C-alpha cells in the first residue's frame, strides 16, 4: 500500500473525488457535496487574494490534492526553482493530502509552452525525470505522485516502453504513481499498445491515485482514429471497463473525475464520481467475499 506519509495528516480515503474548477467554487462552499476529496491545479492558486482564500475554505471541508501542470519534470535544462517554490508556498497554505505532477515536459529555453508535451522514452530522459522527482520530493519534504501521460506521437529513438518508464521512476525515486486510466486508454489506442498490458505492468504498491476523464475521437482519412485527451465529456464506457480491471489489480484507490473543457453543472461531475464509488464498492465486496 501507499505509505501513510504520502497522504499527509488527513489522508484521502479510497473513494471518488472531483476536480474543482472556478465555476464550481461558490456551489461547493455554499452547499458542500458529499464527496471524498477535491483536486485542483496548483498553478491556479499561486499568488494571493481570493482564489487561494477560497481553496483554504474548501480545504476546511475536504482533503485536497494539489495536481501540478507546469513544473516540467522532463525538462533537460532543469527545474525552475522559482516555480518549485511557488508550489511549496501553495502546499504550506493548503496542507494537501496528495501532491502530483506529470511525466511530461513543458519548458524549454526558459519558455513555458503551456501543454504537457511527450518525452522520448530514453535512458537519458529517465535519468532527468528521476533527478527532478528527487528534487521536487526533497524540496517539498514529501512523496509525490507522477502521472502517466496521454500522447499523440512516439519517437524513433525511444527505447523504453512507457509502462516500464513509469515503474522505473517509482522504483528509483520512491515516488508513487497517479494512474490515469483515460490516458492509458487514449495512448494505447493512438499507438497500438495493449491497455491491459500497461495496467498489468504497473507496480501495485506504488499506485496512490487514479484519474478518470472524457476524451474525444478524431476520425482519420485512412479509416483509423486518433483519441484526444480533452477532458471535455463523460468518461467513456471502455474507460470505465478498464478502470474496473485496474481496481481488480490495484485494489480500491482514491479516484478523481477530471473535467476541464465544456465544464458541466456540478451534478454531472458528482454523478460520474458516484459511478466510480459504485465500482470501488463492488471491488471492496469482491475482496471481502474472497477473504471470507
Amino acid at each position: 500500500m501507499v505509505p501513510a506519509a504520502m497522504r499527509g495528516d488527513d489522508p484521502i480515503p479510497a473513494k471518488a473525488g472531483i476536480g474543482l474548477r472556478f465555476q464550481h467554487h461558490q456551489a461547493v462552499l455554499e452547499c458542500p457535496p458529499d464527496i471524498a476529496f477535491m483536486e485542483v491545479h496548483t498553478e491556479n492558486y499561486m499568488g494571493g487574494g481570493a482564489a487561494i482564500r477560497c481553496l483554504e475554505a474548501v480545504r476546511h471541508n475536504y482533503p485536497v490534492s494539489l495536481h501540478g501542470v507546469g513544473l516540467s519534470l522532463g525538462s533537460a535544462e532543469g527545474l525552475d526553482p522559482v516555480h518549485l517554490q511557488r508550489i511549496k508556498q501553495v502546499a504550506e497554505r493548503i496542507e494537501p493530502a496528495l501532491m502530483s505532477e506529470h511525466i511530461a515536459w513543458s519548458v524549454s529555453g526558459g519558455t513555458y509552452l503551456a501543454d504537457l508535451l511527450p518525452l522520448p522514452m530514453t535512458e537519458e530522459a529517465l535519468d532527468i525525470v528521476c533527478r527532478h522527482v528527487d528534487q521536487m520530493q526533497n524540496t517539498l519534504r514529501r512523496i509525490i505522485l507522477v502521472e502517466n501521460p496521454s500522447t499523440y506521437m512516439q519517437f524513433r529513438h525511444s527505447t523504453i516502453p512507457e509502462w516500464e518508464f513509469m515503474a522505473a521512476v517509482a522504483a528509483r525515486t520512491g515516488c508513487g504513481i497517479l494512474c490515469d486510466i483515460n490516458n492509458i486508454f487514449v495512448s494505447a489506442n493512438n499507438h497500438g499498445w495493449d491497455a491491459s498490458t500497461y495496467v498489468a505492468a504497473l507496480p501495485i504498491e506504488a499506485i496512490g491515485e487514479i484519474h478518470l476523464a472524457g476524451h474525444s475521437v478524431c476520425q482519420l482519412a485512412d479509416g483509423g482514429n486518433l483519441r484526444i485527451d480533452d477532458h471535455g465529456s463523460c468518461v467513456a464506457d471502455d474507460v470505465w471497463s478498464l478502470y474496473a480491471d485496474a481496481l481488480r489489480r490495484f485494489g480500491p484507490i482514491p479516484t478523481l473525475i477530471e473535467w476541464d473543457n465544456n465544464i458541466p453543472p456540478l451534478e454531472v461531475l458528482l454523478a460520474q464520481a458516484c459511478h466510480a464509488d459504485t465500482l470501488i464498492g463492488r471491488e471492496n465486496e469482491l475482496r471481502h467475499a474472497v477473504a471470507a
Partner: protein
Amino acid sequence: MPSLLEFQSAMRAELLDDSNPAITATLTAALTPVDRVSIYRNTSRIALTNALRLNYPAVQRLVGEDFFAAAADMFIAKEPPRTAWLDAYGIGFPEFLEGFSPAASLRYLPDVARLERAVSRALHAVDSKTVTPAELARIPQSSAGSICFTPHPSVSLIASDYPVDAIWRAVLAGDDAAIAAIDLGTGPISLLIERQAGSIEVTRIVEQRRRFAEALFAGRPLAAALELAGNPQAPAWLAAHLAAGHFISFAMTEAPRAPSSVVEHRQ
C-alpha cells in the same frame, strides 16, 4: 539520436514558429508527423490565448474575439510566457497593443489594457502583512520625513488621457448605453487600483494625490513625497494608504535628503 536538450529546443521552435523538419523527422509515421505536432501546437496556443483573455477581458470585448485571437497570436510569438504561473502572463501586452497598428484607431485601448494589467496584478499578487499606523507611531516626529515605504504588490496607479475606468466598467458590464455615453474628451484621469477584502477596487484620485502615491510607492522618503504633493491634504492621503494596507514595510533613509535633489534623481 538527439539529446533531450536538443530535442526539446527543436520542438519548442516547432510549437512557437512554423514547421521545423528536425522534430518531425524523429517521429514514427503512422499519422502525418506534422499533424501530430499541430495537436500540441493548437493546445498550447489555445491555453495561452485563454490566459490572455482572462487577464484582458475588456480588451477582448472592445476588439472582438477574432481580432483579439489574431493579436494574441502575434503577442505569444513575440513574448511567450517564462513561467507556468499564467495568471501573471501578458505583462507586456499593453505595450504590444500600443505598437499594434491594426488597433491604432482605438487610441484608448493600450490604457484599458494597462488598467486590466493592474487589476490582474491586484487579483493575484501574493498576500503580505501590512504596516499599521501603530508601527509608524513609534517613529519620532523629527525623523518621520526620512521614512521610505515598500508598497503592497497588489496596489498600483495609472494615469490616462482617457476615461478608461468608465470604458472598462461599461464594457465588462455589457452596458451599451453607458458605452455610448462615454466622452473621450473629458481630460486626463488618475486611478488607484487595489485589492480590499478579496475584491478589486478602482478609484479615481486627483493628480496631486497620484503623484504623492507614486513617490511613496517608488520608495522615495516621505518628506520628498510631501514636497512633491504640495497639498495640505497629503497627510490625510498617507493615513488613508496606511489604513488600506498599501505598505508592507518601511525603512529609514540614512540622512534626510533635500527634496530638490531627490526630485532630480527621480527614475
